[in-house]
């Protein structure tokens, strides 16, 4: 016993501190370790190569190597553990010529937490978002008139459908490579509903090649419903809303083929697009179709703007359902969005000023601390 105590004391001397604790804000099964080796044991002649982490379930038991970290790190997270069970740890600093061992630390147990403290800021912001949206929805429900700016891309839908009808050509609608789990696909479905209704009224054929079978099914249902609403269920053709392929360029080639053969009078690119966006939009332009695009893929927006007649930029797509069906509740949520945008703008301007001042006046710690505080508030860990 005395020997063990002396041995532990000798071991402890190499490290400034060794800490082990249950990893905070996690789903359990994890213990974090932190350590700092004493300055006098860090030398260029005998440098530390790496640290090895040893674990045991008993203090006097056999310690097994569970991992290692490079010498520049002093943190290790031991995962895959059983909750509510005692664990003991020892850190070995593997140096060029010898090995320094820490004291045995423990017992430490891991537990699952019921609240992720790192996401407290997100919770507060989420609650604020909900309150703002609900406030404006309620306001709109009470009958307050809310202004919504003109979105030319959505206003042009009727013209585009009308043009295709006059030319005796079909309409082509594409969701791009979006899945039903993408919010933008849901937004595109509401645009499709409006187009399908107009197409049914005018008796114009609507072609929808699909990349995802689930989106295809949703599109079939939406179009069927729109045709029913327009009183023309007889015009609905399930064969026009087909699955094409789940290959990116295969889909582009398929759509291009349809465009070249069918020569649609109006084309709607609504959804999520990647590198195929310009291939599609340029082919549409080549057949002289009026094209209305809408996407949240920022990298593809310039291509659509260059090749299409109208482009719904990002949020305009999400506003489409409210714009096309201006119910008070829908408009309320749009107004809430605008209010939040104004708040974000103010926060951005204030943060930019503080960040600039904190760099200009480096010795003025209050500004630096304030900037760090703002940064922490809006950082998701």
């Amino acid at each position, binding site marked *: 016993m005395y020997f063990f105590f002396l041995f532990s004391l000798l071991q402890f001397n190499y490290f400034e501190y060794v800490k082990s604790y249950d990893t905070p*804000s996690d*789903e*359990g099964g994890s213990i974090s370790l932190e350590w700092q080796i004493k300055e006098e044991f860090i030398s260029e002649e005998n440098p530390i190569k790496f640290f090895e982490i040893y674990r045991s379930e008993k203090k006097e038991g056999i310690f097994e190597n569970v991992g290692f970290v490079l010498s520049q790190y002093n943190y290790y997270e031991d995962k895959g553990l059983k909750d509510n069970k005692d664990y003991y740890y020892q850190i070995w600093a593997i140096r060029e010529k010898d090995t320094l061992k820490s004291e045995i630390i423990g017992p430490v147990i891991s537990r*699952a937490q*019921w*609240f*992720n403290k790192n996401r407290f800021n*997100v*919770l507060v912001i989420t609650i604020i*978002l*909900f309150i703002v*949206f609900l406030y404006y929805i309620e306001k709109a429900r009470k009958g307050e008139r809310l202004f919504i700016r003109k979105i030319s891309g959505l206003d042009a839908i009727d013209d585009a459908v009308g043009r295709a009808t006059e030319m005796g050509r079909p309409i082509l609608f594409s969701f791009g490579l979006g899945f039903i789990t993408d*919010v933008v696909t*849901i937004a595109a*479905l*509401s645009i499709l509903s409006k187009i399908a209704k107009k197409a049914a009224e005018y008796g114009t054929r609507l072609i929808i090649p*699909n990349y*995802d*079978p*689930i989106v*295809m099914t*949703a599109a079939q*249902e939406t179009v069927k*419903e729109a045709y029913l609403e327009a009183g023309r269920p007889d015009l609905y053709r399930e064969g026009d809303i*087909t*699955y*094409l392929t*789940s290959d*990116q*360029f*295969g889909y*582009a*080639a398929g759509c291009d083929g349809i465009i070249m053969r069918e020569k649609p009078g109006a084309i709607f690119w609504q959804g999520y697009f990647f*590198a195929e966006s*310009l*291939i599609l939009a*340029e082919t549409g332009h080549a057949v002289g179709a009026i094209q209305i695009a809408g996407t*949240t893929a*920022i990298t593809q*927006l*310039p*291509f659509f703007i*260059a*090749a299409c007649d109208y482009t719904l930029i*990002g*949020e*305009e*797509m*999400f*506003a489409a*359902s409210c714009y096309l*069906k201006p*119910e008070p*509740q*829908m408009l309320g949520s*749009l107004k809430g*969005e605008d209010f*939040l*945008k104004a708040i*974000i703008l103010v926060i951005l301007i204030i943060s930019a000023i503080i960040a600039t001042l904190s760099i200009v006046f480096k010795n003025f710690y209050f500004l630096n601390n304030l900037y760090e505080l703002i940064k922490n508030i809006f950082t998701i860990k």
Partner: protein
Amino acid sequence: MIRTQLPLIITFFTGMLLIVTFFIPHKPFGDLEQRFLIWYSIISGFTVLLGLDSLVKYHLTKLKKEFNIHSFILLFSLFLTLILGFYSWFKFKTPFALNSPFMYLYTYVIIPLQATMFALLAFFIASAAYRAFRARTFEATLLLIAATIVMLGRVPIGSYIWKGIASFISTIFPKIPYEELAKKEIFALISDWIMNIPQNAAKRGIFIGTALGGIAMSIRIILGIERTYITK
């Protein structure tokens, strides 16, 4: 009633649950999002059959009416891939064996076809850029100037042109040394500035708007205000 109300209840319950799980790491909430994604993957795996059914039915109907070369090639390729896949599976234990006929089809037919489609992008970019850069308005002129500088800043010829300009300047103003001026790489510097400052600012503006729009849309869906995805 059930047809419209039940999906709304499920959406509300699932949406709220996923928001809550973001803040609760404890089981069973912690890994619920991952579990939902696994469920979605399983369901989407089955929907491939749905897609296949739609595709085959559509082209078979077309072929029955009259012979269509496109439909014939599509169905032929589809079944050939399927047959070669099964054959490779039986012969090599996996269709992905490098010397299997299935992989031969993938390497020498599908990949070149994909590369061909991607390569077409170069020509489409040229034609779209020509239209976009025509200096008809003030904005289009700005776009043209910015795009020219960015392009020159990203290609070796930009550096070569700048060296020529630097030589010209130092000939007119002998006090300005050529070597120092040539080193500046003005096109690259302006290009970086355009990409990092105005381009990034515009991109982030759109990004913030899109994110807020997405949140508003999600809240509308969760609360059952947005119902366009539900048929009556």
